[in-house]
């Protein structure tokens, strides 16, 4: 057990949490959709724009040097944060969706062909489904899905059966955004590799809450977005093993990603990581993401995870007094997410009434429609917690939910 964090003190670093919504203090429980930003992250972007904005990797002038240094330092922060062997294995992308599309359209096009299979799981969010469906349509491959059990954990028996059929790739989420289930990524990767499949892990919901070590996981690709990890929107990361990235063709063409451009002799490309970073990147976003990851490290990912699971347990306990409530996802190993439906009410209505009480939750399918189909529900109400949420806020949420359900039913 790590040292408990002081959420009340941490909150002071998040200016947005001071505001009111509908005349009530904001209770922000939608961390899994996007986290709020600490002042250090906000200031990092501001500082860059105020004092040293210039294009990176271009000029000899001082500002460009300073911007390039900060931008590349941030890459090193990411490398160390996820335990990558080298910083050139860290590719900046526009986000997690962009990173998955990059892999699908480069590595995917070279390694997945007619008749091949891509293995996914029932709990993937749309960003880890649709790019593979598009690739499968283009090359004549097919998608197979590992189903889940009622508690929201992967059906490991089915995984074995489907791996035995020899898929080219197994792409799965480290942590489910809807269920909170934490997959044993190391074991899943080992099983997939033993079956000869490449492995891509979607770490969007893992990086903000737990320590990630891509070398220990031994995955081929690991992706995550910045904005769910206390960083800005519009920036994300693709990690890939160096040998794989080097063999991959570039995806988007343009400046930054070239070595020599010639009409007569053809164009040659830059080495890693710039080969995959065409055009001017989101410089302030990358720098601020580095600050965000350092901010997480300053508190400790384990302490954050412990705090969030404690809040989730408190919420479940409070909500369980509601008659007809059904929690969706009850894996033993779970992150700080509580997803539920209540008999005789629509998630959308509960979300609307909570909003009127200043409580922000997500309602709907959470971009996991296949998962909603599995449970035969239109969607859920989902409260997801961050380092800055307090027990008092969870109480406000529980009382608000009880009140909402009573209004909707009476």
């Amino acid at each position, binding site marked *: 057990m790590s040292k408990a964090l002081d959420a009340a003190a941490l909150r002071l670093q998040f200016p947005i949490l001071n505001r009111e919504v*509908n*005349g009530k203090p904001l209770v922000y429980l939608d961390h899994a959709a996007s986290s709020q930003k600490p002042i250090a992250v906000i200031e990092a972007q501001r500082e860059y724009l105020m004092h040293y904005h210039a294009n990176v990797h271009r000029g000899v002038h001082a500002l460009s040097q300073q911007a390039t240094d900060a931008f590349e330092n941030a890459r090193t922060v990411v490398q160390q944060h996820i335990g990558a062997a080298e910083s050139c294995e860290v590719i900046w992308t526009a986000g997690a969706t962009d990173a998955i599309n990059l892999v699908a359209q480069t590595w995917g096009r070279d390694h997945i062909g007619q008749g091949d299979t891509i293995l996914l799981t029932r709990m993937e969010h749309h960003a880890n489904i649709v790019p593979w469906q598009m690739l499968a349509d283009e090359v004549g491959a097919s998608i197979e899905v590992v189903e889940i059990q009622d508690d929201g954990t992967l059906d490991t028996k089915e995984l074995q059966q489907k791996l035995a059929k020899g898929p080219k790739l197994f792409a799965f989420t480290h942590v489910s955004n809807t269920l909170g289930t934490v997959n044993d990524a190391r074991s899943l990767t080992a099983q997939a590799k033993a079956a000869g499949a490449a492995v891509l892990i979607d770490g969007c919901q893992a990086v903000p809450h737990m320590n990630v070590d891509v070398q220990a996981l031994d995955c081929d690709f690991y992706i995550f977005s910045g904005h769910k990890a206390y960083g800005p929107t519009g920036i994300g990361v693709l990690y890939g093993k160096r040998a794989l990235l080097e063999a991959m063709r570039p995806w988007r063409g343009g400046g930054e990603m070239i070595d020599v451009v010639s009409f007569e002799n053809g164009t040659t490309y830059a080495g890693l990581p710039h080969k995959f970073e065409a055009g001017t990147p989101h410089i302030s976003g990358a720098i601020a993401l580095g600050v965000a990851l350092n901010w997480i490290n300053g508190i400790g990912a384990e302490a954050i995870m412990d705090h969030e699971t404690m809040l989730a347990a408190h919420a479940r306990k409070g909500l369980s007094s509601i008659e007809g409530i059904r929690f969706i996802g009850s894996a033993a190993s779970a992150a700080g997410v509580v997803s539920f439906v209540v008999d005789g*009410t*629509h998630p*959308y*209505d509960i979300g*609307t*009434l909570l*909003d*009127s*009480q200043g409580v922000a939750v997500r*309602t*709907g399918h959470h971009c996991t429609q296949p998962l909603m189909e599995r449970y035969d529900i*239109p*969607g859920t109400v989902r409260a997801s917690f961050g380092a800055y949420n307090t027990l008092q806020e969870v109480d406000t949420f529980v009382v608000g939910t009880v009140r909402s359900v009573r*209004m*909707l039913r009476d």
Partner: protein
Amino acid sequence: MSDLLQQRQHDIAEEFEFFEDWMERYEHIIELGKELDPIADGDKLDEHLIRGCQSRVWLLAAKDGDGNVQFRADSDAIITKGLAALMVRVMNGLPPVAIAQADLWFIEKIGLDAHLSPTRANGLRSMVQQMKHYGIAFQVQG
């Protein structure tokens, strides 16, 4: 006939003036939703679904003996159904031309447009659009 449309909107605006906050307004909207006659399951066809709503909303319309339009609406979410009930109350029994040309100022007056989440506001807009489309269609039919 548009007098009737004006009168109904005034009534609703007045009704909503009494509420102090949005919880009370929603309480009222929920009541309206519960009072609105449900549509029989057999009539809840996909072709009657309104696009652009996070919850499902069905809207049916028919001309009565006097040539006026009678609406029926339902939703699987009760607040949405309450909003549908408000729309039906304002538009029901009007001639097609009045529906097609209706200026629904009460939505802004009671603060719905400002308060609703963008998805819900879109849903409400789609509902209004669909009612007007019925108005236009029945006009053309004559």
